């Protein structure tokens, strides 16, 4: 028989110590961000290794794609590109016009913001939250609070970074809310996640608010976190029940949150000069009724 527990501390003491330490961690969670960042930088190789099987599957799916499939896809993409470039021609014209008008009004002209494509790493996250992990981190200049979009709309924001990876909180998470504006009439609202990938909620909407099914909601830029004008969701259902004090409104996110693979990280203009920017932003905010 081994000399079990012949020396050292008792199990009860160990348990008490573990519980006390855990409670300290639970309480101090938000202040421990730097520690978390450095430990997750150390652990990120593990995430890269865990991502390998998924990457290999992707790669093999691509390499055994038949010539027919590729040709079909190519044709489709060409058509899409033609449509897009036509739209872009018009857009370029509108942008110049907009810049001229803004210059006449004396408002700041919108700059092209820096963007970067990031790939979603296939690693599991906390099942109670809606997270994805990206393959870019502090080394690529990613910062906490950075907006993330995909081809269709806003996806979420970066909440945690390590050297080589970053974690994005999706707009469908229960703790996420984003200020939006209805494109039809500039009504300002807040869209909140409810923990469903395909459903969002608009809270505290007065029953008299002019809101219809099918309205497009774009980011209003009021939270100073998401740049203005990115599409967020489309209104799906508006219920005005007399028994409730507010209307119940649900919306569907435009980004396909359940099958995202490539995302865009956005550096909003003037992120470097955060102190100087709010002043320049003010007149813009007043303009929006």
């Amino acid at each position, binding site marked *: 028989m081994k000399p079990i527990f012949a020396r050292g501390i008792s199990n009860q003491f160990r348990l008490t110590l573990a519980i006390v*330490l855990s409670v300290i961690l639970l309480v101090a969670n938000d202040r421990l961000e730097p520690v978390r960042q450095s430990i997750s930088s150390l*652990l990120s190789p593990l995430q890269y290794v865990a991502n390998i099987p998924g990457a290999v599957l992707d790669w093999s799916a691509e390499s055994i794609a038949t010539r027919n499939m590729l040709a079909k896809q190519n044709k489709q993409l060409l058509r899409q590109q033609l449509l897009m470039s036509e739209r872009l021609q018009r857009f370029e014209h509108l942008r110049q016009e907009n810049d001229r008008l803004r210059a006449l009004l004396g408002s700041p002209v919108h700059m092209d913001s820096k963007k970067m494509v990031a790939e979603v790493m296939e*690693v*599991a996250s906390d099942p109670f939250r809606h997270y994805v992990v990206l393959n870019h981190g502090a080394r690529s200049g990613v910062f906490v609070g950075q907006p993330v979009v995909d081809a269709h709309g806003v996806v979420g924001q970066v909440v945690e970074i390590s050297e080589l990876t970053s974690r994005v909180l999706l707009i469908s998470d229960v703790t996420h809310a984003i200020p939006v504006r209805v494109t039809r009439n500039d009504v300002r609202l807040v869209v909140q996640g409810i923990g469903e990938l395909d459903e969002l909620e608009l809270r505290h909407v007065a029953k008299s608010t002019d809101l219809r099914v099918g309205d497009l909601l774009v980011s209003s830029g009021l939270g100073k976190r998401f740049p203005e004008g990115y599409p967020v969701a489309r209104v799906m259902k508006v219920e005005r029940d007399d028994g409730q004090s507010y209307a119940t409104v649900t919306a569907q996110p435009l980004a396909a949150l359940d099958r995202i693979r490539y995302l865009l990280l956005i550096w909003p203009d003037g992120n470097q000069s955060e102190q100087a920017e709010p002043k320049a932003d003010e007149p813009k905010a007043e303009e929006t009724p």
Partner: protein
Amino acid sequence: MSMHIPHGRWVVWLSFLLAMLFQIMPLPGLVESWRPDWLLLVMIYWAMALPHRYNILSAWVLGVLLDILLGAHLGIRALSMSLVIYVVVLHFQRLRNFPMWQQALMVASLVCLHHLLVFWVQFVVNVASFDVSLFLPALSSLIIWPWVFWMLRRIRRIYKVR
């Protein structure tokens, strides 16, 4: 060689590392909610086999690492894993002598306890909604435990871990 001298520590930590890897490995959507708690299973095995070396505080450290890997609120899994391992360490003699099916049932109920604790703390510090699928990992852990046990015992004997 004396029994007091630890031997083969690296094997144990390597097994923890692999378990962590399995814990965050991508799974197809359907199987995702059935993911066994690899790390907890491996930790239970080592706590059962060598309770004087790998016990509550090692479980705490692994729990913190897992919380960080999953991006969860810090301390949730640390708390629940150390509580579960406390139960294992208290009853390791009995657990060792159980027939395999009984042992697997015990392990499954420990996994249940772990998930309940995680849900409960999650509910307190954040919002979380209860779902019965929370207990699916316990079922898959029940099925997978005999194999984990058998493999880790072989590893322990081959590398003479103590």
